[in-house]
């Protein structure tokens, strides 16, 4: 009998709380997909270095999953809590009929069990299907060619999902039982007739508080976006806490004085149902400020994490193509006591490496440096601006120098621009934007450098784009190119070689990679193959992207679901109010419009503050990630906005339509 009641209750509420079930299902599906990565078919076709990275990724995703399950648990407990609150009257009726609290708890156990089973089953089903798409995505990201399509199913992920969600539902059960056992019958029965006490806040206090919290936010924004380097790790926590507090206070005070401001404008206030809409919002903001704060923070996380994750991935990819024009770079840095004069190719042969493995057009050149040309001299007074962002740079560090003819040979191999220099001229290659900015200041002034009594002036007013060594991204802080005669052999610090392999098929590349990597490090030879750079970069960017998408979407759906559920449950409270409006003759269209406005404002309030937060949050990320490259890419912000629009907008629309159905009493 009790079980029958549970089933009927679920069937009844399934329509009203479709959004809750959808979110649960989505949560289960996403959880499964990201945890099933290990058994993806694509993974078995990967090279060993990529496999290492994937293993790292799976470990990381596992850790993130714990965090994600905490968020989902919060969502489920929170959502369930006000579903229970809404049903107090129903429980009251059961109790007047002589049902004990134990029996009511049993009904709830039955319901939770059914909901859990249903959402897990559907969610896992969708998750298993989704994992197939995921494997396509992985294949694309790691550029593996899959021999044949195989259906992917991860047993570990399957049981992990069931375990984690099982624990969450158990938590819900405990919460439910506790909240029921605390209620008295009279509370339960009169829960529907609650006359909400609308405490009016003093507008003056609200305005003051609003200004204070806005000022606090301003200070925090300044700290994170303008001077992030002055913060230590310990102060991050304080800043986040203060940020949450300020967000909360902004919503709290806004609800108090916004109404007063609008009320003054009688023209607007006494138009259509505006007064009603504003009062509705006001009455609810008072009770939902906390939820709004949570949602605002979640949206902020979504925007920042997703946008910078995608940005980092993109910047990796773009630079990767440009940064890896040849198969291998080999550097010779002579160990203590050995001569720097020997060329890289000679050294390689000495170490038993067969140079016929390279194509003939390989470039072998010398790297020079002298105390007469240090970073402190070339960048001048702005050196602090550079060293504070780039720990590996220092004022006493000598600048790398190469000969013009050497560089032009390399540029030809790399397919880059070749340069010409007059006798007394030099040029600088640099591709870190922030360093370039400081160098350009000096070049613009025509700053001369003096080497052995001869002075050289800059050929160009700004740094040229270019590099010697292949890297995962644009991190060449600066290389001086001088006419051949200006460079003394005594300055030679080592050699550099760039080459393409003679054999270009997959197997040949792999074999040559192994051979060149086998050369002893002790000899001073350091090689960096394209394969290594690509897989390191790809792996890292893929991890970042996956984690960003995973977290971003979880944050987004949790936030949107809380908001949607809150609105829907309140719509049923508001039904009477809309009935009154209808009785005194308000048009359906007028009522719908007011409902739309009301829900729209509720969705927009946390979003707008979250967008403002994100502007500064992204600035912070940009500054912290400056060495990786530009992360605030327009494209990734647009993608984030699109994801936000579709998911958040979808939740908004569903909420509006659901509320409309509720207030129409259908």
């Amino acid at each position, binding site marked *: 009998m009790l079980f029958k009641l549970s089933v009927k209750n679920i069937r009844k509420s399934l329509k009203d709380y479709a959004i809750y079930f959808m979110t649960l299902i989505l949560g289960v599906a996403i959880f499964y997909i990201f945890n099933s990565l290990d058994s993806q078919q694509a993974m078995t076709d990967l090279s060993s270095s990529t496999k290492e990275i994937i293993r790292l990724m799976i470990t990381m995703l596992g850790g993130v999953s714990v965090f994600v399950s905490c968020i989902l648990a919060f969502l489920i407990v929170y959502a369930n809590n006000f579903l229970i609150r809404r049903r107090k009257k129903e429980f009251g009726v059961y109790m007047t009929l002589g049902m004990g609290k134990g029996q009511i708890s049993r009904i709830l156990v039955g319901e939770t069990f059914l909901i859990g089973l249903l959402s897990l089953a559907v969610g896992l089903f969708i998750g298993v299907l989704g994992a197939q798409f995921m494997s396509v995505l992985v294949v694309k990201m790691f550029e593996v060619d899959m021999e044949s399509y195989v259906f992917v199913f991860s047993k570990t992920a399957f049981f992990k999902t069931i375990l984690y969600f099982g624990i969450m539902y158990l938590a819900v059960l405990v919460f439910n039982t506790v909240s029921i056992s605390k209620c008295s019958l009279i509370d339960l029965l009169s829960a529907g007739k609650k006359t909400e006490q609308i405490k009016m806040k003093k507008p003056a206090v609200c305005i003051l508080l609003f200004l204070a919290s806005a000022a606090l936010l301003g200070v925090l924004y300044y700290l994170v976006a303008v001077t992030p380097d002055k913060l230590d790790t310990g102060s991050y926590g304080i800043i986040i806490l203060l940020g949450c507090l300020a967000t909360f206070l902004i919503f709290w005070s806004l609800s108090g004085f916004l109404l007063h401001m609008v009320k003054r404008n009688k023209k607007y206030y006494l138009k259509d149902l505006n*007064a*009603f809409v504003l*009062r509705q919002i006001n*009455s609810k903001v008072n009770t939902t400020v906390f939820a709004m704060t949570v949602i605002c923070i979640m949206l902020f996380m979504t925007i920042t994490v997703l946008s910078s994750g995608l940005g980092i991935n993109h910047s990796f990819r773009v630079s990767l193509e440009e940064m890896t024009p040849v198969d291998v770079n080999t550097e010779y840095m002579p160990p203590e006591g050995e001569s720097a004069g020997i060329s890289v190719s000679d050294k390689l042969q000495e170490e038993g490496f067969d140079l016929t493995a390279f194509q003939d057009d390989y470039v072998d050149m010398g790297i020079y440096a002298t105390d007469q040309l240090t970073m402190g001299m070339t960048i001048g007074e702005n050196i602090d601006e550079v060293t504070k962002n780039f720990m590996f740079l220092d004022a006493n560090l000598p600048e790398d120098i190469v000969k013009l003819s050497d560089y032009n040979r390399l540029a030809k191999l790399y397919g880059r621009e070749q340069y010409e220099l007059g006798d007394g001229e030099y040029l600088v290659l640099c591709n870190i934007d922030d360093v370039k900015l400081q160098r350009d200041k000096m070049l613009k002034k025509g700053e001369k450098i003096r080497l052995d009594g001869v002075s050289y002036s800059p050929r160009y007013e700004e740094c040229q784009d270019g590099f010697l060594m292949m890297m995962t991204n644009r991190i060449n802080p600066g290389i001086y190119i001088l006419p051949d005669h200006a460079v003394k052999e005594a300055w030679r610090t080592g050699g550099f070689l760039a080459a393409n392999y003679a054999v270009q098929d997959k197997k040949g590349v792999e074999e040559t990679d192994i051979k060149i990597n086998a050369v002893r490090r002790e000899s001073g030879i350091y090689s960096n193959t394209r394969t290594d750079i690509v897989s390191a970069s790809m792996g890292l960017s893929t991890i970042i992207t996956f984690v960003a998408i995973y977290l971003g979407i979880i944050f987004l759906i949790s936030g949107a679901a809380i908001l949607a559920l809150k609105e829907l449950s309140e719509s049923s409270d508001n039904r009477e109010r809309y009935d009154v409006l209808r009785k005194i003759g308000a048009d359906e269209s007028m009522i719908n419009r007011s409902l739309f406005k009301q829900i729209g404002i509720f969705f927009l309030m946390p979003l707008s503050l979250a967008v403002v937060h994100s502007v500064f949050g992204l600035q912070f990320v940009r500054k912290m990630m400056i060495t990786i490259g530009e992360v605030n890419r327009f494209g990734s912000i647009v993608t984030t906005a699109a994801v936000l629009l579709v998911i958040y907008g979808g939740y908004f629309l569903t909420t509006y339509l659901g509320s409309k159905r509720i207030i129409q009493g259908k």
Partner: protein
Amino acid sequence: MNTVLEVANVEKYYGNKSNLTKALDGISFSVEEGEFVGIMGASGSGKTTLLNCVSTIDRVTSGKIIVNDIDVTRLRGNHLNQFRREELGFIFQDFNLLDTLTAYENISLALTIQRISPAKIHKSVKEIADKLGIEDILEKYPYQMSGGQKQRVACARAMITNPQIVMADEPTGALDSKSARMLLESFQYLNQQMAATILMVTHDAFTASYANRILFIKDGKLFNELVRGRDTRKEFFNRIIEVVTLLGGELNDVI
């Protein structure tokens, strides 16, 4: 005197053929401008159904209801809403004030949905509040008011649009006797000083005794009619009690 309301042979059936309930069974009457008409009947007699049909909240099965030369049974959709907000005023038993709005906003709402200019709204609200003696509570919320005050705010909301007819459904049902008396005196004021036409449904003889004319309904049919004429309220009250007794104690919850 113009006829503002004419109810002609109205029938309202619920259910289907095998199980038919005739809530209204061929009722006809008319209300003149400036009249204060009470409708009495036992619970289940159809009085609320009648009021709902006249106020276009419910539809009739057959018959005509003509308000000011418009047959409201033919109105559909937004015309209905327009009719309701421009020609009718409502006063409900449970006040039906919006709890999130102040008295001022509750009253002005009736005008804002007619898209009347804000300046005019402000003036009208002040005026009606003055007449009903509720200026002091305009900035209060429903939960801060007594039942009588709430009901007078509801009166103001119903009257502010200058409706053809004010519909009152058990207006004293949720009030103590003192508040009820005050409310009914305001009704009398509306009726006599502001020439409002009032149609009031009640099963309370005391409340009904404030009306000029009373229609008694039994089983969906007009059963009797009483006109106050020159009687004092007390005499009229006694006559009402007589009819109620005649109805056979079915109206046992009088007074």
